[in-house]
């Protein structure tokens, strides 16, 4: 009997629990999931400073969002008559409904933050150079997909917050020259947020965007693996190729174990947030009752703040130029100096410019979020 069970175990986990370095390498290579990592990695990659675990946590959050999202889909009805009521059912009737909704909400916000943080780190260590050019662009795409997922999900509770945030967001899209109105009509399916918009956002949020996201994530991880894992400074131990290569350590268990711990820690933090911090819910969406001010989701408030000055220059040009600039970056900044270091001498100007861009985004977002009151008037006290 024991032998029979062992046979089943062996049929799935063909290598068995690795006992030595050789079987550890074999385990990494033979598993679909684990071979996303190289069998041996540079010990430098294991340090926190090498990754901030930002990419990993982004992926963990994506998986948590998938799990909680599927549970929410069991109850959710994407129609204006019913959507907000399902929030009420989640709050009062569905087993663990409040916890699930809270977790989904906070994981979504956290994912926007973590993906951004991941991108900042990769920029700082010049992780877009050489063979990694296209993968950086894929990363920018993932950042954009994350924002799109968050934005489409923002509408689904169909409360005042959702309705007016999406109204503001889609109005910013309408400022695109020539095709803006058509573009807004395409995403809303109507001239204003309503039944069609809710259905479109639902399908995008639950089917189309996650499918694209995970395809691109697959490409992204595959390329990271093919390009030699994390970017590490040439000067770091094991950072160079060739003669230093013997200092590599097996990914099993050193990397995999750490990743498991990070995933568990992220889950614990998310559970704690979901238990003690309620996801916001406002009264049911009412197109005849405009809140003042009506604000987009927080990660768009920097853009909304800019759009307040000029709908085209602030709301369209600057964001579009930023995204385009990020995509072109690896093809314009091609020298190989200072790769793998956070603050290399050779990149002072580049880092300073990027720092300014981040500061600009942060300041506009903070102003838009905290210091804008009724009529988008500047408030000296956080609202």
């Amino acid at each position, binding site marked *: 009997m024991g032998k029979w069970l062992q046979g089943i175990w062996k049929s799935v986990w063909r290598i068995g629990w690795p006992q030595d370095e050789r079987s550890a390498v074999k385990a990494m290579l033979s598993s679909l999931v684990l071979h996303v990592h190289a069998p041996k990695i540079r010990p430098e990659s294991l340090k926190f400073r090498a990754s901030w675990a930002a990419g990993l946590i982004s992926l963990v959050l994506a998986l948590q969002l998938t799990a909680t999202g599927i549970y929410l889909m069991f109850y959710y009805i994407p129609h204006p008559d019913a959507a907000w009521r399902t929030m009420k059912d989640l709050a009062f009737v569905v087993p663990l409904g409040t916890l699930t909704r809270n977790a989904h909400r906070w994981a979504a916000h956290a994912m926007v933050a973590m993906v951004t943080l991941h991108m900042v780190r990769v920029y700082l260590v010049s992780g877009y150079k050489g063979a990694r050019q296209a993968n950086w662009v894929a990363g920018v795409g993932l950042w954009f997909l994350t924002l799109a997922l968050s934005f489409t999900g923002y509408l689904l509770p169909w409360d005042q917050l959702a309705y007016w945030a999406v109204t503001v967001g889609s109005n910013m899209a309408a400022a695109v020259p020539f095709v803006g109105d058509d573009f807004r009509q395409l995403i809303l399916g109507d001239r204003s947020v309503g039944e069609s918009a809710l259905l479109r956002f639902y399908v995008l949020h639950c089917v189309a965007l996650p499918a694209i996201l995970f395809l691109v994530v697959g490409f992204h991880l595959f390329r990271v693996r093919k390009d030699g894992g994390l970017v590490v400074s040439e000067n770091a131990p094991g950072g160079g190729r060739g003669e230093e290569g013997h200092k590599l350590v097996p990914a099993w268990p*050193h990397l995999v*174990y750490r990743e498991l711990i990070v995933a568990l820690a992220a889950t614990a933090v998310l559970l704690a947030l979901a238990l003690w911090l309620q996801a916001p819910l406002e009264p049911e969406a009412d197109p005849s009752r405009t809140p003042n001010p009506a604000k987009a989701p927080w990660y768009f408030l920097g853009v909304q703040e800019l759009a307040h000055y000029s709908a085209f220059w602030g709301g369209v040009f600057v964001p579009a130029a930023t995204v385009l600039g990020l995509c072109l970056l690896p093809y314009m900044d091609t020298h190989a100096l200072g790769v793998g270091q956070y603050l290399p001498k050779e990149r002072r100007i580049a880092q300073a410019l990027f720092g300014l861009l981040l500061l600009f985004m942060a300041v506009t977002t903070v102003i838009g979020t905290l210091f804008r009151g009724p009529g988008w008037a500047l408030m000296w006290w956080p609202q």
Partner: protein
Amino acid sequence: MSSNSALQSDRLHWAFALTALACALLFGYAVVVDAGRPAQVQQRLVPALGAVDRCELCHENPKHHAGLDDAHPPERFGCTVCHGGQGFATRKEAAHLVSMDWERPLFSPAEQAAACGRCHLGAQAPVPQVAKGRQLLADKGCAGCHAIPGVPRPDFAPELDGLRDAVSPGFVRAWLADPGKLQASHRMPTFRLNSEEIEALVAYLWSVPGPALAPLPADLTGDGERGKKAVATRRCATCHKIDGRGGDVGPDLALAGMKLQPAWIFTLLVDTHRLRPHTRMPGFRLAPQEALDIATYAGEEWLADSGEPPWKAYEAPVEPTKAVQGKKLFADLGCAGCHRVAGQLGAQIAPALDRLGDRHVVDLPHTATGEALPDLPSWVARKVQLPTAFDQKGGAPARMPTLPGLTAADALAVGTALASLRAVPLPATLLRDHDPPELRLPAGQTGRLIDRFRCLVCHSIGGHGGDVARIALDGAGARLNRAWLEDFLQSPVTVRMDQAERMPILGMTAAEAQQLAAWLQGALGDDRVPLAEPATASAEAMSHGANLYAQLGCPTCHMAAGAGTMKGPTLDGSARRLQPGYVQTLLSQPALVPANRHAGIQLSAEQAAAVAAYVLGLPAPQAP
């Protein structure tokens, strides 16, 4: 493995153990917290009202007070449409209180009454607060400025064409400054105007021409003594207060002689509806001499005791240059919402109130003193009582005028009635319109007569019209004989001595009286009353009837054959007035009697026939 022990320290094992334990504990705690959720949900689903009411989780077998239960079963209405609160909630505080996502906590009594008013429409809705509020909305002329569903535009404000021919500028200035000082029971609200604004309005009003006044006949002289008699015999006091006594349908005439130009009074009396097409005053048929006598009498008697008009301090020449400014002010203030100029009412300048009930009191401003009102009806009540209550520092002052004679209870009733106006209508099957069905008056000659004599100012038909006459005209055709009606319309005798309001002597011609009598009899019948031939009763039946008449105590109210009191109509000669079928029926069906003054008297058919025979056999009194 051992070669890499440095990389896989105990710290990692600890971290793994701690994070795994934290996940397990937190999830376990979440499950424990979730166990507090009710295992089974008890709910009432009323899809037509969008209600998902879980109130019965705690409130077992809810019972209403007597009478409401049958008409409002929870299966049909749920709970929250009448009581407010959050039906979805399964916890008490979430169900009862206001929260970030729920703005309608359990209703206050006023809000509950307003909720009744969502289904029970009309000014006669069986919800006292709401019905009173709706009546006040009509009486106070709120619809002059606000569009309010179910409330008609006011029609009681005088037309302002040719105001300069009627009164002095000083009177208008004093009136605009404070109408209450000139007439205690005024209906016009106070607009808090400064003297410059008043001057501009007067200048504008003085620029508006009116119908030409009829010239005072040069060959006639007015006689005040005759005028005084005419005022009494024509029964002007039925509508006007004269020396402090009389009705309040028309204006108090106390200072009319001082206020109004004699030529204007004369024109009003002889050509009422050319001068004032929308007045409630009937078109009397007065000879020029009689009109001149009344105008003379007014000029002699209806004056201030001091001999000086109370608006004397306001007399000054009009400054015509300010007319343009005044016209703009007239429009801005919404004066034309109530007062016709050139036959037209102006636009309703204030916000429409058709969805006021959708507002949440939390969204509405606090008072200038920082007080927050507890619910929407009280907020509206405060606004109605003190329009400036919510003026904010540095903001524009409220434009709404101050309404006269509104008690706190009145204001709350108005707030309650307005809070019942919601944008989302309830299903038509639940609505009950308590307003009487639309009244269709005849066109042609009859219609013109009804209009000329303003019958419906005092009389009501089918719930429409005034209640000065107290007894509705409905069924009058089944009660009264046509010949009597013709006589009465030409020279109205007093039937009910206990009633102060008496039908004015309108001066109808015989042809007019015939036309109206024919209509009254033909159109205002009563299905319950049979058409009976005049009874020819035996002497035996007559004496049986006479006995019953005495036994039943009829003389307690009625005068007949020289005995009895004048509480009810005198019955001598009533065969001429009353139809036999009606008399028989009312004695056996007391509910038939107008104003139901026969309540408690119910005879058998045989007794009724006997008493009717006796009463209708009473001879008419001998003319002296």
